[in-house]
């Protein structure tokens, strides 16, 4: 089951780091970074059913 309860230990810190990763990037570069990040996280999750649940949850 996809975990939709709070699960990130330092939410404010994580959020700041995520936004800061995009600093100085134009739209295309930012989109590319997001895509790489999604793919990297998806691979870490791996479980095919969980990935489907995550796509559905994000829609």
């Amino acid at each position, binding site marked *: 089951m996809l975990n939709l309860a709070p699960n990130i230990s330092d939410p404010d810190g994580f959020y700041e780091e995520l936004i800061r990763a995009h600093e100085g990037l134009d739209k*295309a570069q930012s*989109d*590319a970074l997001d*895509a*790489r990040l*999604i*793919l*990297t996280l998806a*691979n870490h999750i791996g479980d095919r059913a969980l990935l489907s649940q995550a796509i559905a949850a994000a829609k």
Partner: protein
Amino acid sequence: MLAERYKTAFQLYPYTRIAAQEGTATRHPVVIVGGGPVGLTLALDLGKKGTPVLVLDDHDGAGLGSKAICFAKRTLDIANRLGACQQMVDKGVVWNVGKVFHADQKIYDFDLQPEAGHRNPAFINLQQPYFEKFLCDAINAAQSAGAPIEIRGRNCVTALENHGTYSTLTVNTPDGSYQLEADYLIACDGARSPLRDMMGLSFDGRVFEDNFLIADVHMKADFPTERWFWFEPPFENAGQSALLHKQPDDIWRIDFQLGWDIDREVELDPARIRARVDAMLSSQAGHVPEYELEWTSIYTFQCRRMKKFRHGNVIFAGDSAHQVSPFGARGANSGVQDADNLAWKLDLVLKGLAEPNLLDTYATERQHAADENILNSSRATDFMTPKSDVSKTFRNAVLDLANRHAFARPLVNSGRLSVPCNYIGFDLFGEDALQGPEGTQPGMACPDAPHLDGYILERLGGEFTLLAIGCMADDLKAHGVLANAVNIKAPSDAMRARYLGAHPCAVYLIRPDQHIVARWPDYNADAVATALKTAIGKA
């Protein structure tokens, strides 16, 4: 007048005027329209079983031009069963290594080198006209040995009247038209299938909005025998992707993906093609090697299939029934499996050993295979030609990551190469009482393995086989159909791994197309007879 639609590479079945062109129409049990890879395979298979078969083709040999080059192991295994394989493997270029580039970076290579212990390689590259010629050679040899196969070249079917239990065909020849009748009519007449149109049947699917320039180039180059594929190639004017692949006779297949809005006339100008090829070759060799353009053409690709492959006594096989983009080499390779699937079923029906409803399972099994091929081929095409900005962003993210991290490499898709289709869970398959290795479950095609000084697939032949490994089975006849026992006392290690796993012995019932019907931990004649009944559609 009989129009020539294309030039032939080899004349294989020259036209001769025959007595049947006069007088009343003759009835034939099976008429195959189309002498491409699929029609020829089917004719050879049926003829070798002793079923009379007539092939009509509107030309007199194999068409010239850039068509199939990659033939997969499963196709070679089928050709081997039919006696046409050795020439193919001898002439073909065996390859295993593929390299994938993104611009000027190599992002990874793959090795198809199959596990050891198979007679045939994973793939050979061979020009389609050779493939057809070697099938014809095998047909000639079978004819000499008495197989009732007849091929009539320059016999073009121009009209079809379907009477339900038989069809009447009007056939145009250099000496005018005549008529003949067919109990079973098999349409192997290619993607543009005139028979499909004559029956008013549709052929739905997707056209990919892209043009591919294909240049077959003759050159003596010492590039390795590998498949090189570029996304966003770094050489000038190469388009969205490019491919370089070796064929026999010092011919190289070069593809450029040009996009949708192009002027075909302009792009086919030899000077313009040479400029592209020069840029590609010099970027690899450091200079432009000497070469000649053998054949050039521009293709657009589509994925589509007929809703139903069987329409009573008219049956569609190969490109007439389904069409895929060539990335993955699934066209001819899947069509040959259609023929392999249909031949034994049609043979049993014509011999009165099975009911015509067995032919419905040809349709369900091969429609499933077509869906699988279309799915794979569409996914590859979508990766190569992203249809939206976000799709392109993700595609390039995959390529970027693949260069740095192994995890992204399985996501790179430049064509998933043809592998045998399996029919797990389909009607004609029986029990898995063995619960043995995964690769030999009921529904799957038998994997090869060394046996004595040869290979196991060679022992299976083209009838039902009862393969007993580590135990003994007897020939068994049930419902008029014979299953030949093949007893293997001392299996090779590979045979053991692929068919036994941890079990000391096993019995497999195998169809004439070498798909596994059912398997058991020991020999029980009643269980086999039940499975055999299921396998011929007498549930």
